[in-house]
């Protein structure tokens, strides 16, 4: 037992007897090692040094971005040579004009006639005119449900994002039920054109077609407005729908994000 203690690399001498800065430097680290590993494990000093080296290396590699940021904060910044006053003022005038022109070009992208903006993340809409909202409220958008029919057919009910245009306006719309409408209700799918496929009164008083079978329409389930519950269409409250229907013409832009 006593021999073991004497042979141990970190317990050759009692801490008080240790001399030299290197020993004092390694003493606490060695102490940690002694606590972490079994007290009688013999660790040769070079192995210990390699382990410390690897740990330090890993720390530098891991924190290199932070260290770089700190270094950049300390290093003096590169200063550009100053330009001559006459040239600079001429440049400023020229640049100001150029910036204004590009800004004007950017602003020209905003539609002149009213347009609709739909936020699918928070289920809200804004009817805009001249870049300012004229009506805002809640709506319902795609539920992100992936419906699996069991026969390799599946549908994801999400509202498409991007810019669309009103392609058609319809009063008292009739819903032409697609296959999924029957499948998700556990009903047999009727043939195309069958009378069961047409349903009146469920889409509200108006509908605006935005392409690819997607509509902006009313709903019977008003308590669900503000929630993502639809099959991809945008559902609105009756009053909001009426205002939007009256303000948007065929060709008006719809922005969905």
């Amino acid at each position, binding site marked *: 037992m006593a021999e073991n203690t004497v042979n141990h690399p970190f317990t050759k001498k009692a801490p008080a007897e240790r*001399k030299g800065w*290197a020993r004092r430097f390694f003493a606490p680290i060695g102490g940690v090692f002694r606590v972490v590993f079994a007290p009688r494990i013999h660790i040769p000093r*070079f192995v*210990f*040094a*390699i382990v*410390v*080296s*690897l740990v*330090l290396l890993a720390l*530098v*590699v*891991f*924190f*290199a971005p932070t*260290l*770089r*940021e700190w*270094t*950049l904060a300390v*290093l003096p*910044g*590169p200063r*550009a*040579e*100053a*330009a*001559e006053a006459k*040239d*600079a003022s*001429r440049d*400023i005038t020229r*640049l100001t004009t*150029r910036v204004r022109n590009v*800004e004007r*070009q*950017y602003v*020209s*992208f*905003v539609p002149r006639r009213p347009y609709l*903006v739909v936020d699918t*993340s*928070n289920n809200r809409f804004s009817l805009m005119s001249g870049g300012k909202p004229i009506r805002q409220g809640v709506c319902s958008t795609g539920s*992100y*449900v*992936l419906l*699996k*029919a069991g026969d390799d057919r599946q549908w*994801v009910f*999400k509202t498409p*994002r*991007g*810019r669309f245009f009103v392609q058609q306006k319809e009063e008292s719309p009739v819903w032409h039920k697609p296959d999924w409408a029957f*499948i*998700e209700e*556990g009903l047999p799918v009727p043939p195309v054109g069958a009378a069961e496929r047409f349903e009146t009164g469920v889409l509200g008083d108006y509908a605006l077609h935005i392409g690819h079978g997607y509509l902006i329409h009313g709903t019977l389930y008003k308590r*669900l407005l503000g*929630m993502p519950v639809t099959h991809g269409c945008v559902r609105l409250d009756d009053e909001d729908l009426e205002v939007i229907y009256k303000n948007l013409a065929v060709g008006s832009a719809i*922005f969905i*994000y």
Partner: protein
Amino acid sequence: MNLVTGTDTNDTAERDRTGKRSRILHRVGAIALVIVAVLPAMAAFVFLVALPAGRLSQRHQPLSQTSVERPTTPARADSTTRQRDAQLSGLRRDEAFWNARVELAKQETIGLAVDLVDSIASLDIRGVPVRNCKIRRIEISNAIRRLQDRGDFRGRISKPLVVRAEEATLPKEPIRVTEAPKDTIEAMKAAAKPLPSEEVDVFFTLYFDGNLALAVRQFEKPSSRGFRRNTLLRLKENLRQAKKAVFAIVHSQVPQHEMRIEVAVSREDAKAIYRALGPKAGLALRL
């Protein structure tokens, strides 16, 4: 007696010499060990920290375009000159931003315009700002501050930067899988279930070409789960950087410093931004 004493003295001297030699050897050994321990880390520091930082601190060209063409006599760096330079560089950055935004408007994808001067992040669809989000907190990498007046950097941000990768604490699309019901009774049961609410803490990082990363954080204090997810996200980001550093070491390249911008917006805004941006979304940046 004398003899004995003489022998003792010689022995003591011999022991002292041996002890001194062993102490010296021991010290040399200890110094060697310290060098072995510290040298690789020092080398890594020089390679991964000092060299990339040094590169970013190089001198760059004059601000005035016309002054590049002919030799200049550096003017006195008085307050008027500094003010003029600041105005010039600000205008150049503005020009780059608006050019990028116009380019963004020509793309089909939804883009993001981050205006760090006015603290506004805006989602753009074909040139129409559909959502303006107030930026509550901004942290900009020192590297960007150093590079923002360089012509090559301005050139890079005068076109939309494209998203190359992303990390987030929330799914891009909250897909819920539903098996089709077998009959109407099963369908009615499924319809009666309440809708699951999506309460998520929003933290995400977008990595753009040109070695730029935009970290968007929700301004609101996260839940404990959100905090854990955010910590994990940061860890992932650091690991990603470490991987890049190791790659650079292996290929004997000086690693490029990732320029990072961190902005905090409201949770709703952060969610809207993250969900709206497509896989190759563009970014216009105003510094």
